[in-house]
């Protein structure tokens, strides 16, 4: 059997590899991820270091120019990208996992008191504007690192995941294979794991991508308002710095705009993967 034939056997993979959106999105995402991973190696300067003349236009020496303090913006972006990925991973994972757990239990025990309480909680957090919550939490935290920020984002972003997972769980729970597992003496844990969680994998994966993107966008907003990490660097902090020092009015577009380009490209790639996967997993959207 040729490789192509094998691929054709696995429908989802086959369609994923034929989907332009998934391919373009994944290539961009991986390229940025690798860049972030090897960032410190390829960065020509340290992010806090005085690297050369201030106000310098982008050039071969300073790919993204320099800041008002003579820092190399490209090096700053490389380091900042790392924080961005950390926020995406930690915040996205936390938000997804909490949402998953709450959604599973509410859905599996739907109609019970537990479900009522969990959903009440979810609905409350859903209407409280997250940003307000984040502001007040961050404002009173004397020290904030990237991880702290990611965790705060994770702890506030789960409600819609919980709601979506609950309704998915509810529909899976009524499938007959769950009943068959029950009369086969399988434990609740095993049923949730094998019959519900496994079957939601593709869905949860897509949710995770959205949470990842959402955490990144939330974190730059926080950074920009001045609630970012008190130490270190991030894409949001670079831009906050640029705007505070009137970079735009001074014509230093590279300082204020280029970090945002990298960020926007990263988030766009995630949305592309998500939409592409939707077309893959949902046969009615598959293009013939």
């Amino acid at each position, binding site marked *: 059997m040729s490789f192509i034939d094998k691929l054709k056997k696995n429908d989802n993979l086959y369609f994923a590899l034929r989907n332009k959106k998934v391919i373009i999105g994944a290539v961009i995402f991986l390229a940025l991820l690798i860049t972030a991973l090897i960032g410190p190696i390829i960065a020509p300067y340290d992010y806090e270091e005085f690297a050369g003349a201030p106000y310098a236009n982008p050039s071969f020496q300073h790919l993204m120019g320099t800041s008002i303090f003579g820092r190399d913006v490209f090096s700053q972006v490389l380091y900042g990208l790392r924080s961005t990925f950390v926020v995406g991973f930690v915040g996205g994972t936390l938000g997804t996992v909490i949402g998953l757990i709450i959604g599973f239990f509410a859905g599996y025990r739907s109609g019970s008191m537990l479900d*009522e309480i969990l959903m009440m909680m979810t609905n409350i957090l859903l209407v409280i504007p997250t940003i307000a919550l984040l502001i007040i939490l961050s404002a009173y935290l004397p020290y904030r690192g990237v991880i702290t920020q990611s965790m705060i984002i994770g702890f506030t972003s789960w409600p819609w995941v919980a709601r979506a997972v609950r309704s998915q769980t509810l529909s899976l729970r009524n499938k*007959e294979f769950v*009943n*068959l597992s*029950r*009369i*086969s*003496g399988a434990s609740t844990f095993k049923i949730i794991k094998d019959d519900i969680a*496994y079957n939601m994998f593709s869905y949860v994966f897509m949710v995770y991508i959205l949470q990842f993107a959402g955490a990144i966008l939330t974190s730059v907003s926080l950074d920009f308002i001045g609630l970012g990490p008190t130490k270190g660097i991030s894409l949001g902090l670079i831009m906050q710095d640029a705007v505070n020092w009137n970079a735009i009015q001074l014509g230093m577009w590279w300082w204020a705009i280029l970090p945002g380009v990298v960020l926007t490209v990263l988030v766009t790639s995630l949305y592309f993967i998500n939409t592409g996967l939707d077309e893959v997993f949902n046969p009615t959207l598959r293009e013939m």
Partner: protein
Amino acid sequence: MSETIMKIDHLQKDFSIGLMSKKKVHAVNDVSFDIKKGEIISLIGESGSGKTTIGKLILRLLRPSDGHIYYNDKDITTDYKNKRDYYKKVQGIFQDPFASFNPLFKIDRIFDMIFKNFIESDKNKKEKINDALKCVGMNPEFILRKYPHQLSGGQLQRLLIARALIMDVDVLVADELISMLDASTRIDVLNLLASICKEKGMAVLFVTHDLSLGYYISDTTLIMHRGNLVEKGKTSLIYNNPVHPYTQMLLKSIPDIGKRWDKNEKFLPEDINKKIDDFYKNSDIKKGFIEVEDDHKVLFSL
């Protein structure tokens, strides 16, 4: 006379509509019947009659609101915790064969689960599975490594019958097990079920909406209407001498191959509610669930 192994006693199941509201629907209303060893009972009703709910109550997938289910004289509704021993002997097959298998696992999972949870030793596991598969007319080599979507509905239902066979169950609840199968395969699945029944002394509760198949397969027939058991008895008696107006109407609406419906007869399904009301009103002397002849009972009033 064959012994009774399961006794359904004044079973009641109410569902409340909406979480906070007090409105209740009687999905199953005061239903009693016995299941004897090796007997095939068809439980017939239309959608919303409560037939599937009874199946689920027996399989303990739902808790009854009231009433009891005795298995070998043990009340399983009060002894709710101990499910393992019960499931060893009482099993089910569901309507949709494709939905009955977790699509991500190979077929052998359904056998692995029962060996892990119900059968003490794995000794002769392979042999037992192979025997059972052969008994339902399937090739073990071919089937066990497949995924559910690679098999047909008929094959999947046979696998579930094989599963019950390995466990050597006493009571099998078969909820509409053939309704999603094609005409050419369903009769074979039914035959298989019936032959196992006779051979192993397994009782089957055959839940269905299809009266012709019910007639073909069962010894005893129960007719359900809106949660109530309206008529029960020996199959041939019920089909040849239906007393309850609902049973009469059902029988009249069977499409019988070889005999056409009377075109001149006005047939409106919604008339039935009035007819049932009249029937209950006019049966002054008879009240409740009463025997009209040997092995034939009819509900004369609610």
